[in-house]
């Protein structure tokens, strides 16, 4: 569990995070959503220590991250995996070397054991025969999967994903979402995902934090979001007419005005 209280962060005169508090639950996909410039990336960077918050406290399973020494943070970071927006793979290394890098740095395993582990995580993200390829030879979706494989190779307790679906087609996005969701459940990780993708919100949003102009505007899950009366959230999530219709349909279902067991195939004939 990651808990943060009263986080404030400014760059010069611009206040980017203003008194943000929330709890990211263990074993769940915790989503941070919001428009561009709402502060979600800065919040995630504060959580992993790439930015220092001006005020507030961050705790990882009760251990105060903000009060930790550099060495303690280095130790904790070995339990953190992160998938970056651009995957951040080391471009001079092959896929195998990229994934093996954390094992080389932090374990004393021999090469066959490390290779076995690399192949295990590659299989987990459904990639085969890519060991010797360089990142430049991979598609966007494959890069993301290699990024996930590298993030989970040390069995982290916390997984951070920054815009995991950016630049991917809807089908690949859903594959990545499902992969992150399954991994979260399988390894009981605390997963924090920054996203713009509404599919992700509806599919895997178990604990959602909606940010607006640096503040926490709304929190809940993907079931509650349908019935939210927050105007800003609704205009952000259900921006298109199509999504608004879908929301209305779900609300009518919930109120019993439409049969939710209806056979759509039959109706569409």
């Amino acid at each position: 569990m990651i808990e943060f209280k009263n986080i404030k962060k400014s760059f010069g005169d611009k206040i980017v995070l203003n008194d943000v508090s929330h709890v990211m639950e263990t074993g769940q996909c915790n989503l941070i959503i919001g428009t561009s410039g709402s502060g979600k990336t800065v919040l995630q960077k504060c959580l992993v220590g790439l930015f220092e918050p001006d005020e507030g406290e961050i705790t990882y399973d009760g251990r105060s991250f903000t009060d930790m020494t550099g060495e303690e943070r280095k130790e904790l970071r070995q339990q953190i995996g992160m998938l970056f927006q651009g995957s951040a793979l080391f471009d001079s290394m092959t896929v195998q070397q990229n994934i093996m890098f954390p094992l080389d740095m932090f374990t004393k395993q021999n090469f066959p054991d490390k290779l076995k582990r690399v192949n295990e995580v590659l299989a987990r993200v459904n990639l085969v025969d890519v060991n010797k390829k360089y990142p430049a030879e991979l598609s966007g979706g494959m890069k993301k999967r290699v990024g996930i494989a590298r993030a989970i190779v040390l069995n982290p307790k916390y997984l951070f994903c920054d815009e995991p679906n950016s630049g991917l087609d809807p089908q690949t996005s859903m594959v990545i979402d499902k992969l992150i969701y399954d991994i979260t459940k399988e390894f009981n990780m605390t997963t924090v995902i920054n996203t713009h993708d509404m599919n992700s919100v509806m599919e895997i949003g178990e604990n959602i934090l909606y940010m607006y102009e640096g503040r926490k505007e709304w929190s809940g899950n993907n079931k509650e979001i349908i019935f939210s009366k927050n105007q800003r959230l609704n205009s952000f999530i259900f921006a298109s007419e199509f999504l608004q219709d879908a929301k209305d349909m779900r609300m009518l279902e919930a109120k019993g005005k439409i049969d939710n067991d209806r056979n759509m195939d039959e109706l569409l004939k």
Partner: protein
Amino acid sequence: MSFFTHFGRYLLMLRGMMTRPENMRMYWKEFMHQCVEIGIGSLGIVVIISVFMGAVSAVQTAYQLVSPLISRSTIAQIVRDTVILEFAPTVVCIVLAGVVGSKIASELGNMRVSEQIDALEIMGINTKSYLIMPKVVATLVTIPMLVVLSMVLGIWGGRLAGSLSNILSTDTYDKGLLENFVPYNVTFALAKAYTFAFIISSIPAYYGYYVKGGSLEIGRSSTKSVVVSCVMILFADYILAALLL
């Protein structure tokens, strides 16, 4: 940003490098990789410029020494001292500031903008130590070696040019090389080589590590790092000459 802000951040970067490595074997591997990249990678250009520098200085010295009272072996002495004192350490290091410096700045800059440095930080690696330290140590090891090689090749280039253009015989040249030789000059040249090696690696590392923006900024910071390194080399050259000679 003011000069003092840059200088302060540069000093903090140097201090940040001085931590215990997370895994000595990985640091050693990176150090050897950098030795190959910087040392072997710059060998070709160092060989070419050294030979031609020596050759040109022999020909031009002969052109200026028109008095029949001065022996031809003096040309060898002048070439030797010029190459050892100035050409090999300073000119070679200025060229290497372009070759090695721009490579270091653009490599680190690219890692910064593509979030590879952030990825290493998240893993719990001290990026200043892992990415910059091996580069600085590798330049401190390889550049003095390249400077020594440049001295030898520069002197040999002068010998070759002297004999090919019938300025002086190889025997006269060899005799001149042994006349009035001051071993301290080599020590002085090595002191310069170590100082310049540190400048060549640490200044571009600073500009690359702290780059902000995209690919355009990488190019800009790479150019800036080369310019600042060259100016600092010339400044340090003067200071060392004033202090040590």
